[in-house]
């Protein structure tokens, strides 16, 4: 438009522009990557300086529950990806809602299992506080500090994700107009990111060295 016109100003309409929500979420995930990234730097430092301590400490994590949880989260990712695909077809709205609800349920399962793990670790004095069970193993304290900070922050992010997915599940079920396909996709992007973080944490925390 190069000529001055007397037309009333009609700006780009943001509200229905799916591109904005998706791009915005990707940028937010970039910030989250750098947020967790700082912890990865600390981990890289600590593990390269205390390899034995990390190996010994890592063996005290519950590899069965950790693996189960990884499977749960991977499954939830597949389910929410399916929900996003359904969301693009208004005729599949009920399936979208069901898939979102199942995703949230799987997230809650993850948190429950994590809670059980934490309870075990508390009983076994693996929290790096007074009375730490591995106090005489150099680097073990750092391992468990990073373990609890990383998994704790991850769990917090997952909790927020569960809340968000529940809201979308409910909104989709009663066909709220704001729960558009691009917004569902943006929510799913967040969920997938939380999954990717766990994918990285799993070998770093549970699989340092499992052979005898």
């Amino acid at each position, binding site marked *: 438009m190069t000529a001055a016109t007397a037309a009333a100003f009609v700006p780009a309409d*943001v509200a229905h522009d799916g591109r904005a929500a998706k791009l915005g979420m990707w*940028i937010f995930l970039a*910030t989250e990557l750098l*947020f967790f990234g*700082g912890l990865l730097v600390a981990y890289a430092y600590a593990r390269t300086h205390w390899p034995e301590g990390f190996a010994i400490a890592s063996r005290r994590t519950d590899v069965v529950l950790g693996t189960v949880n990884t499977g749960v989260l991977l499954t939830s990712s597949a389910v929410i990806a399916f929900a996003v695909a359904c969301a693009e077809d208004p005729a599949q709205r009920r399936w979208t809602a069901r898939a979102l609800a199942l995703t949230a349920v799987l997230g809650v399962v993850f948190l429950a299992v994590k809670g059980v793990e934490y309870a075990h670790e508390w009983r076994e004095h693996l929290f790096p506080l007074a009375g730490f069970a591995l106090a005489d193993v150099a680097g073990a304290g750092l391992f468990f500090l990073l373990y609890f900070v990383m998994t704790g922050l991850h769990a917090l992010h997952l909790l927020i994700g569960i809340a968000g997915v529940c809201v979308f599940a409910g909104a989709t079920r009663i066909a709220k107009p704001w729960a558009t396909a691009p917004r569902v996709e943006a929510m799913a992007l967040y969920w997938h990111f939380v999954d990717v973080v766990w994918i990285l944490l799993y070998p770093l925390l549970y699989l340092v060295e499992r052979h005898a």
Partner: protein
Amino acid sequence: MSSVAEATIDRVGDGSAAPAPSYLDDGHSLRSWLTTHDHKRIAILYAISITVFFFIGGLAATLIRLELATPAGDLVSHDTYNKLFTAHGVIMVWLFLIPSIPSVFGNFLVPLMIGARDLAFPRLNLLSWYLYVLGGLIVLVALALGGVDTGWTFYAPYSTMFSNSWVAVTLVGVFVVGFSSILTGLNFIVTVHTLRAPGLGWFKLPLFVWAHYATSVILVLATPVLAITTLLVVAERLLQIGVFDPAHGGDPLLFQHLFWFYSHPAVYIMVLPAMGVVSEIVPCFARKRIFGYRFMAYAILGIASIGFLVWGHHMFVSGQSLAASLVFSLLSFLVAIPSAIKVFNWTATLYKGSIRFDAPMLYALGFIGLFTVGGLTGLFVASLALDVHLTDTYFVVAHFHYIMVGGSVMAFFGALHFWWPKATGRLYPEVWGRIAAVLIFVGFNLTFFPQFLLGMRGMPRRYHAYPAEFHQLHMASSAGAVVLALGYLLPLFYFSYSLRSACRAGANPFGALGIEWQTRSPPPTHNFDRTPVVPEHVYDYAPPGPRPTRAPAAGAKAS
């Protein structure tokens, strides 16, 4: 106050219908301001809050300079002095400089400059402001409780293990303010990508927009690292075990790597928007196209990218390996290149221009000169051998104040004067504007130039008492601070006065180009009454001709 009926849609400007109210008149209750989604109102909210913090940080600086006027540590105890310079740094960096130009002028102008109605996520914008205020209040609470004495850099192990002051509370405040920054950056990036007017390609964007885009990328990528670092420090303070404690196998330098990975790009968050402002002012008051527009845009991107590669230059004497220090020193030299390109291009823009020394131009010219001094002295401290002598002395203090105060704060004031008529619909008194600019320039140099000399002669930073040999230079510096303070206070008075004066500004009192000048002053809530015209060339200033006058609007609006 307004007798104009509230319009619900923009109206065709054919005179038959009453025009929509300006954004200032669109609701007068406090609630309408505190629940606004309008980027312009949010910019005003930010302007008021950062001004408050600027003066609090300035008060700390005043006490510092008062103490340093005499060699003996006689005004405050050493402990209080530590808390003063920490407060000054924390407030000035996180509560003033980082948000200043982006959150005030970026918020106000980016949608206007691209012909949009608002930012991409208006409610997120309001949340940014609330997070900023919350974080700022938390920092003030920590200050009231007794303050922090670690320096704004919070180095471990002092901050994590030995300081008796309110470290954790302050860092929580910083953490919250960080999220305010992140959301602002996210908003700007999405806005520039998705809401540009039809025909407004990337290389038709004003350099102000380029600068804010690059700043937003830095905000988004660097600030999260600060966030996790503050969490780790707080965790170590509370749990007594952490990755920064050598006794447990940790490394204090890890803190510095993580801290400076954010804090070096942070200085580019502080200077790039200022450069964007200067690139808007100089062509207007030289009546000439900016020289080398594309190189200016690429230089902005270059500064933003290379700025991520140089953080280790803050750690040359910390115990960092020599190899790493060499790498960081080389990279730090490289980052000077795009900065120099910008200075050369501004200078070339001035060459054979028809220069008017209005207040905004005085600030922009001040920026160019003072930023150059600051940038050149940056090369001094980027040289490994020199830095061993200069680090932790007043040389470094002078270096960064030349850039952040002589640079960014001057550009902030330049922007304030340049866009004041647009934002408020009033003209500030030009004579007083120029007086303040000169006072600030003189006061600034008197305050900070002696500090280069002090540093070279060995005066350490963060000391409240010093040997008598440094007395004269410190006296000069403190005297300069008085002049500088006067210069900063003056605008408070004449800007307030201008709000009450009858002199109204038209849409374009400076004869500037740029889409924001096509709408009235102050703009309506929806920014434009008519679809704005996208110019063929940005900065297409005519060759020297009749000068536009700073005349008030012919046919002033009904008051």
